[in-house]
């Protein structure tokens, strides 16, 4: 008995150590991400004048929505939120309309140059928008797309497309082709087989792609600030306002910007794990 117990205890110790290490690193990583969020949150929900108090109280003793209210009531914020939403929704529609079929093709058909296409799609992500911006602004001025929600949505779609194509390719690759074939032997055409079988099964993944696209567009600031003057999206407005507004205003803006990403990740983490862990 004692021999057995003695033989077991070092192994138990090793396991406990493993746990401590794993949880310890997890906690460190979580703090690394959470502390800035928390500080932003604290500053966004304290009184404007408290922003400069130092050291900060670790617990929110004295919450107030005054700062947030000032931020939300200041001129242009509401309009820019509407703009941001309009741009994001347009971006989702455009990038899914073009990206999902491309992803489907990549997943289903083996064609000459398929690898190359995949590579080019990825490579396009490396092209810096900054270089494009001036010619783009000129072109948009000519086309009447400058300072226009649709114009920004087009640019955002261009940014989101590589991502949407690759993700939807992964999603459709996860839907067995034999399911569609079975549907085709049961009286479906290619199209109806897609609509009745592949699409419903791909829907969660497509939704995740859509919401990811939303966040890309919601957070994008460079193109939006260059290509707009009055029709600012929220990030463009915040960026513009940063230079001339008090610190508490910046915190409120930052908090307002960060929220959608957090909410998104909270609801979508299951799909995200599937997307990256699976295929």
């Amino acid at each position, binding site marked *: 008995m004692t021999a057995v117990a003695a033989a077991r205890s070092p192994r138990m110790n090793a396991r406990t150590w493993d746990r401590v290490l794993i949880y310890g690193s997890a906690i460190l990583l979580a703090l690394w991400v959470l502390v800035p969020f928390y500080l932003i949150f604290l500053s966004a929900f304290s009184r404007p004048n408290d922003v400069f108090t130092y050291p900060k109280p670790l617990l929110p003793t004295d919450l107030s929505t005054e700062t947030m209210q000032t931020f939300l009531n200041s001129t242009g914020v509401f309009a820019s939120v509407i703009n941001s939403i309009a741009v994001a929704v347009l971006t989702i529609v455009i990038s899914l309309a073009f990206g999902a079929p491309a992803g489907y093709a990549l997943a289903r058909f083996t064609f000459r140059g398929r690898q190359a296409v995949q590579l080019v799609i990825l490579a396009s992500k490396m092209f810096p928008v900054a270089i494009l911006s001036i010619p783009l602004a000129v072109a948009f001025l000519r086309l009447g797309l400058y300072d226009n929600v649709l114009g920004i949505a087009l640019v955002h779609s261009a940014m989101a497309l590589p991502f949407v194509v690759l993700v939807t390719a992964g999603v459709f690759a996860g839907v067995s082709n*034999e*399911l569609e*074939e*079975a549907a*085709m*032997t049961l009286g479906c055409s290619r199209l109806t087989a897609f609509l009745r079988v592949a699409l419903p099964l791909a829907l969660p993944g497509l939704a995740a792609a859509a919401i990811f696209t939303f966040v890309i567009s919601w957070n994008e600031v460079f193109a939006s600030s260059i290509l707009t003057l009055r029709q600012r999206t929220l990030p463009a407005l915040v960026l513009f306002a940063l230079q001339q507004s008090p610190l508490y205003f910046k915190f409120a803006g930052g908090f307002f910007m960060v929220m959608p990403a957090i909410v998104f990740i909270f609801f979508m983490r299951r799909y995200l794990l599937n997307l990256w862990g699976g295929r």
Partner: protein
Amino acid sequence: MAGIRMQGIVKTFGKTTAIKEISLEVKDGEFLVLLGPSGCGKTTLLRCIAGLETVDAGRIFIGDRDVTDLPPRHRNIAMVFQSYAVFPHMTVRSNIGFGLRMKRVPKPQLERRVQEGAALLALEPFLDRYPAQLSGGQRQRVAVARALVMDAPVLLMDEPLSNLDALLRLQARADLKRLHREVKRTTVYVTHDQVEAMSMGDRIAVMREGVIEQCEPPMQLYTNPASQFVGGFIGSPPMNFLRGRTKAGAFEGEGFSLPMDGSRVEDGRELLLGIRAEQIRFGERGVPARVQVVEPLGATALVTVLVGKVPVKVDAPVNTTVRPDQNVSLAFEPADIRWMDATTGAALAH
């Protein structure tokens, strides 16, 4: 009215030729089994018939219609997939009724036929479950039911029983056979289980590397295999083969010589002597051999003997007296011997 006729079908995937050249006719109402080792092209041939693969050459007729260029839905077929391919987002009920809904069958009739299909495969308790909540065998039955309710004149089945346990498999085999007798749909049934093939097929087409080696009724295939491959593939245990050479009207193998009516075969030819396990007796005179293993199987005992270095299986009575390491002689009737060419493996005419 709905036989299948294939003429010179060729199908390649890039550099691999899955179907070399196959011409085959399945008569109306016939139950044809496609049998062959893994990777020989059974599924590919079935998919060509279904219209899921476009053939590189050849034509396919179903009934009188040339369907070579028609999509699957216009071919009047129903198919059971090797991987079941049941729709995960639909209940068993919707799965079975899917094809009928596509055909816009009126609701009352649709529900009746779904019920019938479910009853036939003992799926009634699961009608409102999703496939994820079923076992592999139950999923496979859903796939079979989904194809059966279509009432298509041609039924294509790709190893539909491969995932059932032995007992259920026996039962399902009998059910499918009875069903076929009742409805007489033209059926092409893929399997690599030769017992299943023997018990179900009106004819069996034995495939090997993209060609059909032999297509005949089961017993004919068993007694007169067209090649060493077929003899070695059909039957459990497979046919035994002894290598040798003809010499002065006799067949000379390793350590034995058998008289053969040498009139037909020229001297010095390399031959294979093929003989079934149940046609070998332990006798006084014959091919000398040494017993290696005795396996009692219940009704009979399977004895493995060595002729030279070649293992030969013998079906012996269960009360056989032979023991391992004993020297025995193998006797058989000349009429039971099947001669094959040793280089090509093809059977000699007899």
